[in-house]
């Protein structure tokens, strides 16, 4: 059974069909990339998984569960974490606080034990901190631990967002354009990090990305989309040479 299954999913905004009868499966342990021109519906696919939108028709299944039955805040409990195309961090909090919010789905304490800060709440904080420190070490964020997000440069924010998603201890990680706006060196770092997430943390990665170097370097399978529909699905090389993909990007030879 696949980890994530899209089955004939269609989403319409008024007259616009954002996702059109889309079906694909993401296998456990693979790195799966979605590519396509602007407006192809790539981010909409992510927002469907995050339950920000309800599909018009079709089914989304995750790990045997019907994802459409979950609340938007319940998706994280299944072990699905995500980043956003336009960074959505908690601006007026430190990097550490941001990452600790990522631990929220593991919260066991209740309001009373937190207001009194009972030993159980203290123990939970220490556990959370240790997990977060592992992520900080993994992504080299030590220097920024106590910095406010509002004062950080773009590249670092991008990494902090990935770190926050990793702090939730996910099984499936959705990365929405992890390399957009990053320098060549930063993109290379990101490439190895994504690779390591799978190797060391056994995370399945689903990403939307425009940088074909990153996509072909790291992903096992690629889904090409245009106008909300599937164009091609296969290895990076297969998709890049697929006639429909070439046509969608470059137009038809006359």
């Amino acid at each position, binding site marked *: 059974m696949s980890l994530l299954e899209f089955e004939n999913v269609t989403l319409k905004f008024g007259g616009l069909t954002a996702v059109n009868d889309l079906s694909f499966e993401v296998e456990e342990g693979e790195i799966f990339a979605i590519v396509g021109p602007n407006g192809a519906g790539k981010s909409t696919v992510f927002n469907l998984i995050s339950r920000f939108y309800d599909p018009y028709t079709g089914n989304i299944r995750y790990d045997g569960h019907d994802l459409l039955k979950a*609340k938007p805040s319940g*998706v994280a409990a299944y072990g699905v974490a995500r980043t956003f195309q336009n960074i959505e961090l908690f601006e007026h909090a430190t990097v550490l606080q941001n990452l600790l*919010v990522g631990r*929220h789905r593991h919260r066991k304490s209740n309001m009373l034990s937190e207001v009194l800060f009972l030993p159980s709440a203290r123990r939970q904080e220490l556990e959370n901190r240790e997990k977060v420190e592992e992520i900080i070490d993994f992504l080299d964020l030590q220097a920024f631990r106590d910095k406010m997000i509002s004062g950080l440069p773009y590249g670092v924010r991008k990494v902090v967002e990935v770190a926050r998603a990793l702090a939730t201890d996910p099984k499936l990680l959705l990365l929405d354009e992890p390399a957009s706006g990053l320098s060549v060196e930063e993109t290379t770092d990101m490439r190895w990090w994504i690779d390591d997430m799978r190797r060391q943390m056994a995370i399945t990665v689903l990403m939307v990305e425009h940088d074909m170097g990153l996509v072909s370097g790291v992903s096992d399978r690629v889904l090409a989309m245009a106008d909300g529909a599937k164009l091609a699905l296969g290895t990076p090389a297969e998709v890049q040479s697929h006639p429909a993909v070439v046509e969608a990007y470059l137009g038809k030879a006359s």
Partner: protein
Amino acid sequence: MRIVFKTNYMQDIRPWKDAYQLCLYLILLAVVAAAPWWLDDFYLGELTNVLIWAIAGLGLMILTGHTGQVSLGHATFLAFGCYANVILLEAGVPFLIAFPLAGILTGLAGVTVAIPALRLHGIYLAIFTMALSILMDDVIVLAEPITGGVAGKYLGGVEIFGFLVDRWGTPVQFFWLVLGVAVLVTLGYINLLRAPLGRSFIAVRDSEVSAQAMGVDIARTKMISFALSCAVSGWAGALMGMFSGAFNNETFSVLISIQLLMMIVIGGLGSIHGAFLGAIVIGFLPQFLSISKEYVGAVFGGNTVAIPGLEFGIFGMILIAFILFEPMGLYGRWLKIRTWFELFPFYRKDMFKRQKSYLKTERLR
């Protein structure tokens, strides 16, 4: 500059940075607790008033400063707490039960209000809560059998462990009661901020979408924030009732709501210090104005008759000045001054970059 060398995660989890900081706050607490020995009864009363306002400010800070939900109607919950406390006391419930219960009841009232308010954002929520504040006035008048209506209610002293605690009879005991409540509320607030719940408030304030993606239930979190905020406001209201001794439907008017919001903006949104600094400004400004009016009258002659609306005019001007020049409030200014000294001469002007939108999720939709 003091550099704290961290060797243990507990150093980040415990509320104080190092022994030096802990000492400072303990000395401050000791000096304030000893106020009856270095202040006369008039100024002790003023200090008590400031502390009560600070508790009310902490209540609103939870909701507006940390969860990002603007409320222009918190006087409603002050009133609710005040009446709940008095009505329970009149029913013969001892103070030590009536007082906590008044806060809890106000918290429950807050949850009831929160349910329709959950769908509102920014200015719409402000209008909704402001309407509540206006409505409360009429409700108090209409519910005359319970609330005493326009004639209002009176509250003498209360008894705690056999000691009489009365604003006029035993101002020192009343001061310590207020100080005790203020310290307990502050400690609870500090604990909240270092725990997952406090962080989820901040998450909801700064970005609802990503809070949701992290597994924070927005509706639930806002509801808890309303509950805690209103409970603290209820306690502040109960103390206000005991402080003024007599109150009616006009005591907790919409002006109090506005003043409360102004207070935390001037003090600094999103910080516990802000509630206290704002309370000091709001509490002492009327005295400061009347003293300076006398002084101006004495030096330059002319009449010293009360100028109508002077107080609110000056409040308004201070608020405008803060929003224009120091949106981070007094606490933000203090942070800048402290950083300037710590880093001298390397302070840069853009170290505290001014944020265009303080409350991201509060943008009009």
